[in-house]
Every structure is written in C-alpha cells, then in structure tokens.
C-alpha cells in the first residue's frame, strides 16, 4: 500500500539521542571546506547544516514503515529547509522526532514532506523540513 495524504500527521518514536562531539564538528566543518573559527574553538558550535546528519538518521523510521512502501534507493532529496533556534554544540544530546507533514501523489512520483524536530532536554534547537521525491515502483 503506497503512502497517501491519509498518512499526514503520522509521527514516529524518536531515534536514540545523538551526542554532538567537538571532533565531529571539526570533521564536518573541514568536509564543508569551512574554516570559520567558530567551529574550531574549545566552545565550538556546529555548522548550521550539521543538523542534517541527525535529521537524516531519523528518516530511517520512514523507510522502515512497511505500510508506506517507501524505498531509500528510489528517493531523491527535493528541497531542504532549516529553522535554527540555537546552534548545536559539543555535549548536546539531540533527540530527533519525525512526522509526515504533507503527501502529494503524482503519476510517477510521490512527494513527501517530512518534518524532523530536534530537541535538547526538551527544548527545540532546530526544525528540519525536507521534501522527498519518491519514484513509484511501477514507474521505475
């Protein structure tokens, strides 16, 4: 059974907490080619799009839900939006919770908008909204 607009509002149990480390912040900044000093000090903050690492780990719940019939290898990332409430920093234990916000069924493709809310100690730190373009199996 494919994903339909009836699945809008479905929320998944949060993924296990992700602990941000200074080493991972540095590794990520270097991978972006970004030498901003804010990422390389004792009280470093993470580059804003670091949130995507944690959000993407929460996507697993979506693909594991057999009722939705979604497959990662037929999925393209259509767009990405972040609202940043505060920067991530080393020591943050980040909880990511995924919900389905919008579903549009097209002839060959389903467009699924998901929202991952990232919180630390219950306080929101980042909202990561993604539109995923899923090519239907019969169209592949």
């Amino acid at each position: 059974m494919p994903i339909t607009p009836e699945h809008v509002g479905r929320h998944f149990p949060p993924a296990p907490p992700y602990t941000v480390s200074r080493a991972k912040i540095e590794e990520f900044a270097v991978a972006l080619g970004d030498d901003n000093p804010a990422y390389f000090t004792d009280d470093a903050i993470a580059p804003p799009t670091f949130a995507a690492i944690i959000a993407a780990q929460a996507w697993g719940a979506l693909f594991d839900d057999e009722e939705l019939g979604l497959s990662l290898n037929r999925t393209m990332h259509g767009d990405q939006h972040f609202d940043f409430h505060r920067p991530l920093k080393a020591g943050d234990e980040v909880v990511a919770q995924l919900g389905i916000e919008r579903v549009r069924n097209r002839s060959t493709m389903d467009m699924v908008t998901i929202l991952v809310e990232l919180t630390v100690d219950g306080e929101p730190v980042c909202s990561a909204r993604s539109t995923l373009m899923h090519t239907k199996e019969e169209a592949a």
Partner: protein
Amino acid sequence: MNVGDSRELRVRVTRSQVVRYSGASTDFNEIHFSDRHARAIGLPGVVAHGMWTMGAGLRVVTDWVEDPARVLSYFVRFTRPVVVPDTDDGVEVVYTATVAEIDGGVAKLTLTATCGNDAVLGAARAEVRVA
C-alpha cells in the same frame, strides 16, 4: 549589510572532498563514490551530496556575518546535481548571496549556486540576525 549588497564565493570540490563529506555526514550512498552506481541511475558520474552543496554554500553568508550563530533559517531546492570529475582540480561551484530585505534586525538573503552553466540550487534563501 544593506539591501542590495551582494557577495560571491567560489568553492572547488574534488572527489576526495566528496569522500570526506560522506564520512563526516555518514551518507554513504554509492553515487557519491562510484561512477558505476551513479551511471546506473542516469547520472554522468559521481555527484556531490546535495547537503554538501547546501552546506558549503552557506559560507557565503556566514563569512559575511562572521558568527554562524546568527543564521536563523536556510532553504534550498535541489535542482541539478554537481557532477565531480575524477581530476585533481574537480569542479567549481559559484555561490552568490544578495540582501533582499532587512526588517526588525533580520536580513533576508537570496542565494544562487552555479556549476558550469547549471543552477544547482533553486529558490535558495537564508535569514540572519543582523542586530
């Protein structure tokens, strides 16, 4: 920072940078290191991660405001992949950011990202705290 001001940033990306981003982001999709897998889904060859293209481009804004904690929001549409040739020089992505509006201490910027003749990001925009 005033309405109409703009900045440009040129970023070179090589295969080794793409591999580095795979490790840092833990996105190990084969299309980011294997030409064979990339061609199997119709790409000309290995492509950079969309999230790399998005993340590297934000530097045009954060270099400008200096403190990345000022970034309040960031949106992009992934329009075309950045194809990364297996050469020492890789390929260059050119980013621009332009201040569209400043209101209530928040600047709204529009961004572009171009690789060769392709716009690789669409409708890109960011909000930063400026006061």
